[in-house]
């Protein structure tokens, strides 16, 4: 063995050892705030395996054969919904898709009644999007299976944050975000994507910068100050600024968020054109980031507003990779959630299967 390969091997062993024994025990995934860093790493490793399945000639495995996944979307969505449904089908689950426009919701059925009905119809995993923050938490209280939050109000979008994290790790040496500068530019105030990303990116140790007009950053400085003082163990400080050049300078990752037209009516933004001029990610602004920096957007994009068309299709943009990774991340989460049985003696049974030598015995 040559001496110079030794430290890397040792570092790898040391880095991977503590996470080897992590098992998933969350019954629901409502946000990333309750997911520990070793659990996030488990999701990332499981996602790697799912990417492997997506690269096979037959992109389908029987892992969730016969399990019933229901998507319940109270808000318009194409990519998230199709992504979840594709993920579920890749795992051989049966998928029932409910959009509220054509359901009894239009007849006045309450959320709780809808969820009880879906459970009675056999739903085991419920993927839910709702315009009201916290709605999936209510769903989780009444639903007997697993709830996966596909986005609730301004609050959380955990699968988006996890696919963003996965995409960033793919582009950073060693998949390590520690000390890497990540700038998120846009309507932070109304963004569930930004909120979930704050949890996962600070847990990853990134140097996080949130940037937007002061009216769309309201309250974020207080959050940043609290965490800067070490309010939440394991989550580092982040920065808030309205100066886009400060945010983007030497960044490893630049993410634009969608600007919604209805924000203009509330007087939070003077005009889209002014936003584009002051905050839009154009080639000149992106050139201040590091040479190898990537540009991200959770979609759907307003090209020419928060992101310039030439930036969106440039070699730095990884926006379509985000979409592809979304399927793999959602496969990983469906797989992990499906195994988290309420009340099962997780430790014992999990151990019987995971103790390396006991596999044949347990089978």
């Amino acid at each position, binding site marked *: 063995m040559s001496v110079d390969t030794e430290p890397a091997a040792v570092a790898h062993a040391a880095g991977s050892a503590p996470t080897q024994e992590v098992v998933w025990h969350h019954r629901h995934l409502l946000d990333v705030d309750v997911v520990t860093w070793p659990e996030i790493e488990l999701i990332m490793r499981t996602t790697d395996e799912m990417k492997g399945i997506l690269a096979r000639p037959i992109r389908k495995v029987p892992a969730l054969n016969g399990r019933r996944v229901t998507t319940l979307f109270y808000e318009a969505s194409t990519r998230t919904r199709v992504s979840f449904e594709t993920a579920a089908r890749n795992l051989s689950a049966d998928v029932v898709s409910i959009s509220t426009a054509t359901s009894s919701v239009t007849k006045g059925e309450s959320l709780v009644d809808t969820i009880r009905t879906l459970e009675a119809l056999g739903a085991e995993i419920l993927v839910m999007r709702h315009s009201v923050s916290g709605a999936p938490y209510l769903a989780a209280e009444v639903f007997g299976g697993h709830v996966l939050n596909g986005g609730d109000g301004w609050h959380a979008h955990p699968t988006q944050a996890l696919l963003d994290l996965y995409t960033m790790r793919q582009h950073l040496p060693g998949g390590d975000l520690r000390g890497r500068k990540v700038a998120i530019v846009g309507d932070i105030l109304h963004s569930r994507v930004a909120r979930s990303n704050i949890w996962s990116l600070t847990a990853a140790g990134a140097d996080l910068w949130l940037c937007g007009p002061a009216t769309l950053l309201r309250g974020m400085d207080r959050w940043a100050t609290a965490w800067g003082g070490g309010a939440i163990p394991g989550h580092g400080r982040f920065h808030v600024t309205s100066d886009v050049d400060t945010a983007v300078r030497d960044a490893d990752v630049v993410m634009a968020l969608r600007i919604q037209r209805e924000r203009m009516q509330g007087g939070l933004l003077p005009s889209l054109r002014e936003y584009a001029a002051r905050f839009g990610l154009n080639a000149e602004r992106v050139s201040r980031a590091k040479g190898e920096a990537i540009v991200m957007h959770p979609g759907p994009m307003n090209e020419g507003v928060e992101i310039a068309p030439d930036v969106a299709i440039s070699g730095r943009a990884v926006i379509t990779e985000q979409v592809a990774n979304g399927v793999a991340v959602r496969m990983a989460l469906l797989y992990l959630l499906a*195994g988290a049985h309420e009340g099962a003696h997780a430790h014992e049974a999990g151990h019987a299967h*995971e103790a390396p030598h006991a596999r044949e015995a347990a*089978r």
Partner: protein
Amino acid sequence: MTDRQIMTGDEIRRAIVRISHEIVEKQAGTQGLALVGIQRRGVPLARRIAAAIEEHEEVRLPVGALDITFYRDDLSLVAQQPIVKGTDLPFDLNGATVVLVDDVLYTGRTIRCAMDALIDFGRPRAIRLAVLIDRGHRELPIRADHVGKNVPTSREEIVMVRVEEIDGNDEVSIGRQLRAGEPAAAEHP
């Protein structure tokens, strides 16, 4: 500690060499052969068989790793999803004679999963099976083509295969399975 050793490191080595000869003999050469280890301990065993074949045939056979987690038929019965260990099949399976390699053959369910998984990657000309230990108690109509050692066991017993690449030494022993509530004093290292 009631573990009883049934194979030493030397015995494992000799079994691997014998299996490597048997595989080549059965194929009448090495043409079209590929080895696929089942995660985890089948993988180092497959590599060793390949190394033994390379030694006496001077041919380096392709070696792959197969994780069967997503193909298990008991996923809804376990309390926690098993951690996936990774599949890597760096060769074309179509037309190949694939020798699956695993440490212990017991119920046969792992092998059924492995065959399902393999067939999703292509259409091998034939699939064969080599195991270090056959402990009986089959629940499916599956048999091994190459066996290191046949070991009669009871269902209450547990066969522990240690391989140097993962566990630090080579050894096969039989112990008693822990029952629920029993202290984990005899935990496997």
